[in-house]
């Protein structure tokens, strides 16, 4: 007889005590019924066997623990796989879906040594660790039970994560923002120079402050004014500043209001779920702070008091939908992008607009052209349920004059054409494109697909920077390919491009149309074939916003220089399946001399590179520029620096507590200028790739915080 691992025996004992009477009663009745009719032994719940979990534990340790932690607690390389985070994502789904997801996507470096039975056993270990009760019937790859129905929620799993008290909900710290003045549309269209009232400060996504008190002549005197520790977890925050108050999004969906001059906490609201997932930004409009939660809700808080005013569900988190960036408020409408659209399910991938006063949904735009859409024939005849991807996971921008909002869309899913049963000719509208949407109707005004039929996890989803040059109204963007695209934002017409880092995905980019031609081996790539490409999935450029410095007509972008090899995995066309489905391995970009980080400055008229600044450490903040002719950026190696916007020279630097990550802000209170920046952990490719290529760059694995700097007061 096979011995039982005491770890699982103990968990079973603990779990049994806590298992609900209803479930136990049901099992007993089922057992009695079986005995009455057939006189056979009760096989227990049809979950998994202890032997499977034991075998799975060994496989997990060898193949998964490096990234997800020996106790499934998560590490900087991979998310945790236990507790409420896991159950909120997978509780309503089946082991079959979980096994399929893991087999399709994990481990990221390749799975040639793992059979399906190994994935089943690894899943048994994960389910056991999360408190699922074992039985006598083995887990199989087609197990259709609901995971949560067999999990004791208060059992062993949460206790394994960390010994934290139950997370509070609602208004945790009460306070009032004095003399609050509602923020109007006009104030958002032309922000007060002292404010930073939205992600990237203005509708045009310039990340530029007109303040010049701190400038090239005195920036060397900057010193710390105050620092505020933030909640642990993955974090890429974009604080906003309005009328002397900083509104700060923390991990665990916590929003805080802080006195911007002193760092004093005014109020704090917890919307939950209390997890370690990332949320980049919030918005503010009239008297409300608008928060998108990681479980796909929209919530309005009273900007004065932090009290919740309304909430609405954007999408079903149990279907895999999440939010990772917050909204923009345009023309009185909250516009929110959606992420987590990689699964084969009936629900679609939407950009939605909501009434700012009530949360009522006003319109939605499906980023995936369905078969009944005029552009629906771009998906190779795939049934609608198998058309996946097209996430709008980075907040868009807005032209109040044209009444158009501009968003980037992510690529088709799975990542490689053979995995999604398509060819390189199935371009898949409206993925990997710039889409211009009428804010009144939600209808598509125009689109420009930068990389049709994207094949290597290089999406073109990031911020759209709106620039006026003479009579030209431009929209500029850089995606993971590192190509700076210039389009007319009234028509979408292609106007030009430049390559900001080395790329070898395309052998040609048509100078007249912008049409790209993939390298031949990429065009013909098959399943289970390693395809090298530069840049890697961390870009080129990633979520870290670039800045437009209007006085010099220069875009300054935080760029990254690494490469990858991609190996497409097979994905079955079955409902509930899908995923990303590639193995990847990463390497330094040849020609970069080992410098992952690059700040590149580009003239928006000529697209020529004006200057560059390269370094070993990758950049983990957006860039911001000021009328003081400064550019600020922070990196993995804990440095936060001010550069001369004319030539990139370093004029000031400070080393902070951990990696500098997020979106810096520039603001003023009572006539005094400040610079704020966050330190933070977490993130996917932009964090994982430098971690494996430059492991010598070390930083503490905690230390999320907001730092604020200023010049010494003059006597």
């Amino acid at each position: 007889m096979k011995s039982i691992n005491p770890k699982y025996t103990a968990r079973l004992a603990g779990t049994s005590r806590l298992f609900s009477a209803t479930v136990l009663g049901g099992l007993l009745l089922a057992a009695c019924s079986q005995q009455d009719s057939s006189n056979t032994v009760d096989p227990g719940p049809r979950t998994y066997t202890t032997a499977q979990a034991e075998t799975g534990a060994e496989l997990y340790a060898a193949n998964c623990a490096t990234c997800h932690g020996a106790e499934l607690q998560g590490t900087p390389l991979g998310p945790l796989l236990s507790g409420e985070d896991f159950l909120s994502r997978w509780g309503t789904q089946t082991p079959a879906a979980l096994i399929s997801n893991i087999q399709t996507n994990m481990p990221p470096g390749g799975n040639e040594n793992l059979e399906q039975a190994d994935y089943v056993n690894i899943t048994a270990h994960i389910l056991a660790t999360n408190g699922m009760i074992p039985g006598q019937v083995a887990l199989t790859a087609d197990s259709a039970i609901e995971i949560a129905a067999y999990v004791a929620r208060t059992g062993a799993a949460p206790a394994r994560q960390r010994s934290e008290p139950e997370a509070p909900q609602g208004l945790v710290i009460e306070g009032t923002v004095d003399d609050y003045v509602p923020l109007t549309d006009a104030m958002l269209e032309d922000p007060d120079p002292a404010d930073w009232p939205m992600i990237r400060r203005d509708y045009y996504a310039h990340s530029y402050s007109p303040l010049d008190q701190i400038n090239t002549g005195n920036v060397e005197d900057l010193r710390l004014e105050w620092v505020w520790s933030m909640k642990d977890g993955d974090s890429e925050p974009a604080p906003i500043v309005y009328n002397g108050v900083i509104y700060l999004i923390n991990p665990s969906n916590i929003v805080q209001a802080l006195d911007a001059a002193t760092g004093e906490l005014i109020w704090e609201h917890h919307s939950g779920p209390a997890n370690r997932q990332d949320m980049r930004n919030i918005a503010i409009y009239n008297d409300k702070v608008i928060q998108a939660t990681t479980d796909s809700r929209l919530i309005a808080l009273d900007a004065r008091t932090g009290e919740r005013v309304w909430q609405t569900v954007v999408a079903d988190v149990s279907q895999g939908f999440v939010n990772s960036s917050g909204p923009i408020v345009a023309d009185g409408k909250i516009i929110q992008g959606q992420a987590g659209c990689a699964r084969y399910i009936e629900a679609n991938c939407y950009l939605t607009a909501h009434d700012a006063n009530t949360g009522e949904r006003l319109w939605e735009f499906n980023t995936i052209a369905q078969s009944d859409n005029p552009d629906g024939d771009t998906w190779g005849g795939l049934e609608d349920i198998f058309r996946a991807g097209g996430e709008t996971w980075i907040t868009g921008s807005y032209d109040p004059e044209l009444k158009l909002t501009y968003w980037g869309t992510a690529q088709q899913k799975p990542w490689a054409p053979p995995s999604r049963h398509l060819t390189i000719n199935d371009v898949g509208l409206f993925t990997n494109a710039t889409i211009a949407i009428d804010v009144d109707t939600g209808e598509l005004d125009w689109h420009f697909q930068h990389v049709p039929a994207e094949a290597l996890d290089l999406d073109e989803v990031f911020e759209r920077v709106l620039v006026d040059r003479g009579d030209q109204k431009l929209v500029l963007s850089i995606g993971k390919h590192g190509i700076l695209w210039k389009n007319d934002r009234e028509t979408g017409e292609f106007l030009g491009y430049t390559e900001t880092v080395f790329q070898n995905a395309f052998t040609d980019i048509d100078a007249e149309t912008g049409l790209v031609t993939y390298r031949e081996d990429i065009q013909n790539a098959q399943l289970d074939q390693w395809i090298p490409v530069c840049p890697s999935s961390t870009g080129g450029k990633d979520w870290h916003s670039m800045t437009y410095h209007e006085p010099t007509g220069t875009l300054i972008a935080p760029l990254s220089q690494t490469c990858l090899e991609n190996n497409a995995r097979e994905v079955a066309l079955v409902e509930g399946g899908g995923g990303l489905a590639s193995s990847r391995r990463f390497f330094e970009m040849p020609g970069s001399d080992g410098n992952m980080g690059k700040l590149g400055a580009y003239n928006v008229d000529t697209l020529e590179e004006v200057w560059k600044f390269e370094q070993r450490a990758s950049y983990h903040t957006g860039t911001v520029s000021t009328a003081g002719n400064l550019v600020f950026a922070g990196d993995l190696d804990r440095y936060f620096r001010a550069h001369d916007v004319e030539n990139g020279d370093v004029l000031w630097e400070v080393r902070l507590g951990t990696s500098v990550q997020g979106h810096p802000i520039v603001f003023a209170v009572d006539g005094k200028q400040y610079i704020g920046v966050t330190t933070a952990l977490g993130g996917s490719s932009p964090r994982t790739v430098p971690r494996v290529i430059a492991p010598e760059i070390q930083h503490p694995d905690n230390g999320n915080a907001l730092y604020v700097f200023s010049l010494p007061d003059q006597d």
Partner: protein
Amino acid sequence: MKLPTRFPSLTALCLLASAAVIAAASAQSGMYRARLSEVPVTPQTYRTITGVGEVFATLDDSTLSLTGTYQGMSSAASAAHVHNAPRAMNGPPIGALEVTPAPSGELSGSLELTAAQVEALRNEALYIVIHSENNPGGEIRGWLLPRE
């Protein structure tokens, strides 16, 4: 007797010929450098595929001479080769180099390149791979690029 002025003098012809030879030699010479770093890694392998290095190469006519150093590999170097493929791509070996049988050490060697291989060098399509006992498929590599 003076040659007609519309014909170049012998001296001038000699000078022209010399210039052509020098130009040809110049076209077949150059200095290159490669930074060696880890072959593609994953979260599962980056601790066992390690090391950096630097290689300098000089092309003289069709002879490519290489010297370099490397440090921090996971195990002793077992071989080193020059391969032919564009930047970031994988290609076949075209010649072997001498390498210290240790995790850190030196490499050197000299290769006679074909005209196509000289062209590949000019097009940044030659790279160096150091293999090791733990990673016989290659542990560190780097492309030869013109020295600035």
